[in-house]
């Protein structure tokens, strides 16, 4: 149900937000778009010139760029499903009745990882995952596992980023899915429980359809955030060793802020932005079907 209102009212409600985002969001973006058609290096301003689509051509044929994209995609497919599975499991446990106090505590503790500063998370990873003085290796030692060189080995470093990303964002996924679960009418769950003991069947056939909006939200947010992931790998590994953890945002930051090639970085960013938007649209198109 919607209300028809006058243009003035509409403007009063929407105007400020639209104006604000146009100013802080669109204007710089247009600037970036414009610069992406230039050779524009801060340390070589004398050589600034319009180059048309050259930067785009360079980015699209740059193996480093595509490797970083691939790495980012790999991170996404490795961490997001785990986040969803863990998050869903946690949500399901918290959704069940009983043990209220425990569950409140658990819910509160879920806030911790997502509230921890991302840059700090990377530093914390260095401390905890260190081969020598890291507590994780100490604990693995108790289990009889030899110390693992988490940060120094390309594969392990990548895995460490995956694990840490999972740690930080699983709680968020859990909370969103928990909220999604709370939209399932209790009688519908009960109706299913009368048919089957299997929690899996209830989840798959009854709860899942209600979770789809939440899942799409999670997918959209996690896609955007994975593509933007910078602080944590930067403080943890700086993209190394080798380029094992050089994700797309780390790469762009390097090109823009360390090689000062703003034009190129802008082209890379805009390609990335376009990709995110396309992905978000696809999610909505394919996963988002009406439940009600």
């Amino acid at each position: 149900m919607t209300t028809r209102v006058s243009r003035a009212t509409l403007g009063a409600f929407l105007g400020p937000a639209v104006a604000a985002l146009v100013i802080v969001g669109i204007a710089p973006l247009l600037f970036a778009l414009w610069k992406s058609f230039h050779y524009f290096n801060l340390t070589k301003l004398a050589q600034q010139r319009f180059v048309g689509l050259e930067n785009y051509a360079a980015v699209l044929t740059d193996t480093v760029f595509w490797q970083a994209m691939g790495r980012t995609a790999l991170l996404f497919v490795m961490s997001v499903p785990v986040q969803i599975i863990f998050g869903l499991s946690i949500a399901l446990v918290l959704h069940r009745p009983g043990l209220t106090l425990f569950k409140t505590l658990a819910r509160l503790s879920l806030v911790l990882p997502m509230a921890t500063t991302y840059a700090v998370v990377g530093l914390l990873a260095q401390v905890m995952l260190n081969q020598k003085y890291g507590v994780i290796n100490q604990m693995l030692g108790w289990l009889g596992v030899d110390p693992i060189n988490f940060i120094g080995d390309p594969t392990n470093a990548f895995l460490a980023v995956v694990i840490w990303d999972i740690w930080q964002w699983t709680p968020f996924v859990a909370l969103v899915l928990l909220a999604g679960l709370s939209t399932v009418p209790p009688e519908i769950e009960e109706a299913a429980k009368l048919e089957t003991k299997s929690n899996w069947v209830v989840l798959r056939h009854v709860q899942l359809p209600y979770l789809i909006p939440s899942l799409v939200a999670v997918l959209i947010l996690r896609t955007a955030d994975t593509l933007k992931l910078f602080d944590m790998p930067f403080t943890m590994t700086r993209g190394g060793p080798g380029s094992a953890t050089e994700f797309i945002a780390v790469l762009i930051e390097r090109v823009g802020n360390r090689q000062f090639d703003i034009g190129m970085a802008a082209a890379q960013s805009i390609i990335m932005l376009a990709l995110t938007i396309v992905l978000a649209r696809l999610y909505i198109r394919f996963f988002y079907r009406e439940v009600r």
Partner: protein
Amino acid sequence: WTLEEAAKPYAGTELEVLFLDRPGYKAAIEMIPEFEAATGIKINQTTVPYENALGEQVRDFVAGGDLDIALIDLVWIGNFAENGWIVPIDQFTADPALADPELDMADFFPLVVNAFGGWNGTTYGLPFDNYSGLLFYNSCMLKDAGFDKPPETWAELKDVYGPALTKDGKYAFALQSKRNETQSADSFARMLWPFGGSFLNAEFKSNLNSPESQAGLQFRQDLMQYMPEGIVAYDHSEAVNGLAQGDVAMLTEWSAFYSTLASPETSTLGDCLAVAPEPKGPAGRKPALGGFSLAVASQADDAEKAAGWLFIQWITSKANAGKYLEMGGVPARQSAYADPALAETYKFIPALVESWKEGVPEFRPRFAEWPAITEIVQEWGTKMMLGEVSVDEGAKTIGEKMEAVLAEAGYYDGKKPLAQ
């Protein structure tokens, strides 16, 4: 000429400068009040991580910001000079109202002032925070293994000390190699030069696949067996900590880490700490060279420029060198180290003086393209160490990418002088 008098017209001027969180800057910060009291000039220093210092300054200069003094790592000097962001010192040394008669440029280690402050024959900055690579070692561990002196050459370090000291979870050596400036400065370049290699040849083409360069890089590869696992992730702090905790016997590090390794708060070494110059290679010592100079920024107004010069001149002066050293800084004044008694307190002094006698200014090329090239070296240098590419292939890749950067910059079509 007195400072007070020279500064009179500039009293009340405020100067903006970036500092790092390192001992030399701490020393300077302690000394600044004295300068401010004498001159009425105010120094506003902002501490930033090294990682951000370049970006911070580049953006400020591009945007016509408010920095009045540039803090220049030796590898940035070409960049800053070519962009015209900094002012040559002769503008001030020629002005009797500003130039301290005691300035005595010859008293600076020539290598240092040339490398840190000079570009293409012009001097822009005075060396302020100065480093040389040194060999720090745990003399007790060496003694236990039967050595009463440190290795003289890299070959000796690897073939004699390496096997003897690598056992029981302890390692003979650590070479900090993390993928950032550490990889290119402390790891890659460190092995290139002593073996006779270099980044570029006379035509500015890649020299990395020359037999000498290859020998050096291959040596680094071979040496890794005596280093802790995951050395590729070691930054200074991990490497220093390895030595400080007694897990590593030897370490090539900047002179500035002396205080960290000597302090009981951060190190367990105590009297076992010893310092020597870096080992020699077939091509001689060629130790790592690094450090920062201070230069007047051209975006400053005239009063700020003059005041800035007065500050730079003062903080690097012969008169202040002793105090600077005392507070944990490393001055570049030869006169400061004349007193042999100092070597008792600061064990690194002899080694430092020794090192600054034979170094190469272009240890890392100092032209404006270095920020782009270092990123390439960091990426492929670590890959090389990890065995993801062979030494040969890696060097080739770096070479190609490096040449592309240089071509883009115009070195090959004669647009730019071949200065590094």
